[in-house]
């Protein structure tokens, strides 16, 4: 019973979002949706590309000459700025057809992967990263760090793939 109410609330929320002036304008304007979508794509590619550098460093596959903290200090600001843009654009795209997107399985999987990526990053920051001074340079990154890198890479690749899939399934042909 509670689950039904939750779903109904979500559906109503999405319906309300679709009806907003902003959502309607983006949907009806000939250039707004394609432009926002293009920015979303550029931003996402920068998120994936920059995070890949960090993940490959954690996995010990790239840039071993530099301390982990150095690499992360360079990469993470890029990732966060790109992520902020991607998130904003994603939200603007979402509201135009919120009720359809929320029902789209590729969209659902993408959101789940983003949650997983976030949880993975949080766990890494709060737990594994605390001992970084011991493995910052010269020695291999501990297994937990390597795992965090691998999970992150897999999640973001998946987010990119399923994000593209949303396009094919929302607008067939």
């Amino acid at each position, binding site marked *: 019973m509670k689950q039904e109410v939750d779903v109904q609330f979500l559906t109503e929320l999405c319906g309300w979002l679709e009806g907003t002036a902003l959502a309607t304008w983006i949907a009806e304007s000939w250039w707004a949706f394609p432009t926002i979508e293009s920015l979303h794509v*550029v931003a996402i590619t920068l998120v994936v590309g920059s995070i890949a550098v960090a993940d490959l460093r954690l996995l010990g596959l790239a840039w071993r000459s530099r301390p982990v903290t150095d690499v992360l200090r360079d990469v993470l600001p*890029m990732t966060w700025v790109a992520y902020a843009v991607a998130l904003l654009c994603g939200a603007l795209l979402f509201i135009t057809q919120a009720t359809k997107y929320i029902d789209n399985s590729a969209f659902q999987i993408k959101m789940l992967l983003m949650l997983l990526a976030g949880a993975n990053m949080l766990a890494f920051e709060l737990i594994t990263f605390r001992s970084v001074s011991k493995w910052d340079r010269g020695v291999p990154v501990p297994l937990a760090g390597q795992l965090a890198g691998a999970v992150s890479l897999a999640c973001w690749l998946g987010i990119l793939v399923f994000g593209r899939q949303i396009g*094919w399934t929302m607008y067939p042909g």
Partner: protein
Amino acid sequence: MLSVGLGNASGKCLWKRPRRETEGVEMHEFAQWLAGTALSHQIQIAGWVIPLSQTIHILAVAMLLSSMLFIDLRILGVAAKSETMAQLSHRFVPWVWTSLILLALTGTLQIVAEPMRTLNGNPMFQVKMLMLAFGIVVLLSFQSSLRRHTSFWDDPRRRTLTRILAGSSFLLWCAIVITGRWIAYFQGA
């Protein structure tokens, strides 16, 4: 004909190209011929090829843009300051070329699979290819300049110029990606 492009939010193609009598006839005929080949047909029938190609295409874009970002941020003096220009470029430029090769391969595959989407007078495709050619020239010039005038890129007196060059270069590659996305919206003819 299979078309995996998108319209705008309501799914419609944005633009109908007015065709003059003699304009672009050869390209149009070539596109039609290509669309009729067994190869093009086989790719379309095997429904997984185009999605896989487009996915690899966008992964390569991620590789390209983030490599360019690292190089350009280094020129701006914002990232990887502990590395010299030469060191950093040496690390990332190979990734740029790798991604360009992947983009060329998947791009060609996608054109062969759906010739009418790109070759049939699609202005976005034409603009993208022009900018891409320019981008490659810029990339080659940069590599050459880095080899011959390495000190130029580290010279504090040249900072404004190198920053403008770095910023413009990055915007150019973003513009190429954006026009690439717009190909789908201009595929009607």
